[in-house]
């Protein structure tokens, strides 16, 4: 790992920043495709159509996720889900999928460019998330496979734990991502953090 300038808190260049401790890691989790599914959770035809397109079962329980081959479905609300894939091939052609979901009474939106994901890992991760977010990140309340929509600072954010805590990934609107990254780095600097190279989501 290269030695980064410790004064440039907020830089996205891989390297170590802040205090000397090396327990905390930040990186971007790259997203190729993100589709927003809207529709009636009680509709068997909608669920079947999404299962055909994304090869996963939509999570019906609040704050939960499900996984298929290269695709993660995150519960956003009782009629809304986010399908995320790090590789565009995992979800395929949008127009065909949209028409199929429309025919099943739902709606599908291509929001691939709308969010950036940041992965925070290491023992102090929960404290760094809690510095800007009112959610309880204790594993008892927010375990692996769960997601929550909330805020980081004043920015709406979607939090997702695809592995056991302390690891956590947060998705924020691209237009706010620079500010959120700076906030994360500022919160992390007192304990020291390492920026890793971007890696695929999930």
């Amino acid at each position: 790992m290269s030695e980064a300038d410790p004064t440039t808190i907020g830089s996205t260049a891989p390297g170590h920043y802040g205090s000397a401790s090396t327990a905390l890691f930040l990186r971007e989790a790259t997203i190729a495709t993100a589709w927003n599914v809207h529709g009636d959770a009680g509709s068997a035809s909608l669920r079947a159509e999404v299962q055909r397109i994304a090869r996963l079962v939509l999570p019906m329980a609040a704050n939960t996720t499900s996984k298929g081959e290269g695709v993660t479905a995150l519960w956003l609300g009782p009629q809304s889900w986010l399908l995320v894939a790090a590789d565009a091939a995992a979800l395929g052609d949008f127009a065909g999928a949209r028409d199929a979901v429309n025919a099943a009474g739902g709606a599908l939106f291509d929001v691939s460019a709308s969010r950036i994901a940041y992965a925070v890992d290491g023992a102090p991760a929960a404290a760094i998330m809690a510095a800007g977010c009112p959610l309880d990140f204790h594993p008892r309340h927010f375990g692996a496979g769960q997601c929550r929509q909330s805020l980081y600072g004043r920015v709406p954010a979607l939090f997702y734990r695809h592995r056991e805590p302390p690891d956590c990934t947060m998705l924020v609107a691209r237009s706010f991502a620079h500010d959120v990254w700076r906030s994360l780095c500022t919160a992390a600097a007192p304990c020291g953090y390492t920026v890793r190279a971007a890696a695929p989501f999930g």
Partner: protein
Amino acid sequence: MLLIPCPWCGSRNQVEFTYGGDATLKRPPPDAPVEAWYEFVYLRDNPCGPHDELWLHSAGCRRWLKVRRDTRTHDILASARPDQALPGGEP
């Protein structure tokens, strides 16, 4: 700080929510006299005690919900989906 129980997401911090006003108002029929519309649009009670309110879980599931809040203590007494009654009916 208030903890508001979202009927879908569970207990969440107040900062995730947006206040949406009195939940007990009933929209008058379209041909109601102008006085009824004036009252519906502009006039509000200022109750002391339990009050049924609309809140939007704006930073969460983006759903509207009903919340019964005690205006004296800020105690959150109950919450429900918009299409469901709060326990005990209207205060």
